[in-house]
């Protein structure tokens, strides 16, 4: 009982729940046969990853994950599903086929086992645990050390959006 309480207070249980949510959402995307349901699985996985970010001390990254990934990228993907489904196929237009499932699962399991093995084997020179960081420092760092990357990313985003609208426009 005391062990359970201590684990609960350490936050290990909540961390485990978020990890499970992220992995189960991703697995649902892998095994589902409907495009729209797969995007909902991706939503669950993104939420789990946002929770993991909070535990890793990145509160702002977590908020940005929810805003950019769930509010932007996922909505774009659902738009894409809506616009690219084949109307002639009728009811089964959202269905997809899974090919080479055994092959890809073998590769995925071996890849994750290999990466986990490497993670467990390697030694990290980690300093002791520090108190949580503040978003203020993140803003200072963004506007001083990495301001050039910020500007370049802004230009890249503008180029990508203009290019996307140009590619997707209707031909005369």
């Amino acid at each position, binding site marked *: 009982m005391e062990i359970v309480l201590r684990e609960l207070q350490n936050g290990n249980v909540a*961390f485990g729940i978020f990890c499970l949510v992220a992995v189960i959402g991703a697995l649902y995307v892998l095994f589902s046969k409907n495009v729209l349901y797969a995007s909902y699985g991706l939503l669950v996985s993104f939420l789990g990853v946002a929770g993991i970010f909070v535990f890793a001390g990145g509160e702002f990254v977590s908020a940005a994950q929810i805003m950019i990934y769930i509010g932007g990228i996922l909505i774009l*993907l659902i738009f894409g599903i809506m616009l690219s489904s084949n109307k002639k196929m009728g009811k089964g237009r959202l269905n997809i086929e899974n090919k080479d499932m055994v092959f890809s699962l073998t590769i995925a399991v071996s*890849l994750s086992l290999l990466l986990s093995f490497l993670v467990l084997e390697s030694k990290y020179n980690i300093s002791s645990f520090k108190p949580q960081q503040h978003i203020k420092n993140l803003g200072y760092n963004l506007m001083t050390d990495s301001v050039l990357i910020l500007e370049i990313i802004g230009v890249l985003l503008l180029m990508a959006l203009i290019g996307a609208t140009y590619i997707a426009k209707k031909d005369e």
Partner: protein
Amino acid sequence: MNSLTPYLIVSAILFAIGFAIIVTKKNLILMLMGVELMLNAVNINFVAFSKFDKIPEQGQIFALFIMLVAASEVAVGLAIILKIKKYYENINPEKLTELKN
């Protein structure tokens, strides 16, 4: 969590699942979803390492930039997918064989 290992293992599992999605699914939009999952796994690694870094903001800034690049990638990718849909009438990558042979 005061240890680095769980983050890295979760990110390894997510990365592998994203790879499996890219290999398995015969739909361009789902392949994009797999790429997003893999980028998410990389982001977890960056933020987890930044927790134990001397300058803890660096990894988080990297993660933010990766998110923005992913957003622009999805925008351009979806535009291209819509063009492919218009031209070939489907988005199954196995049926786009005009350049084959």
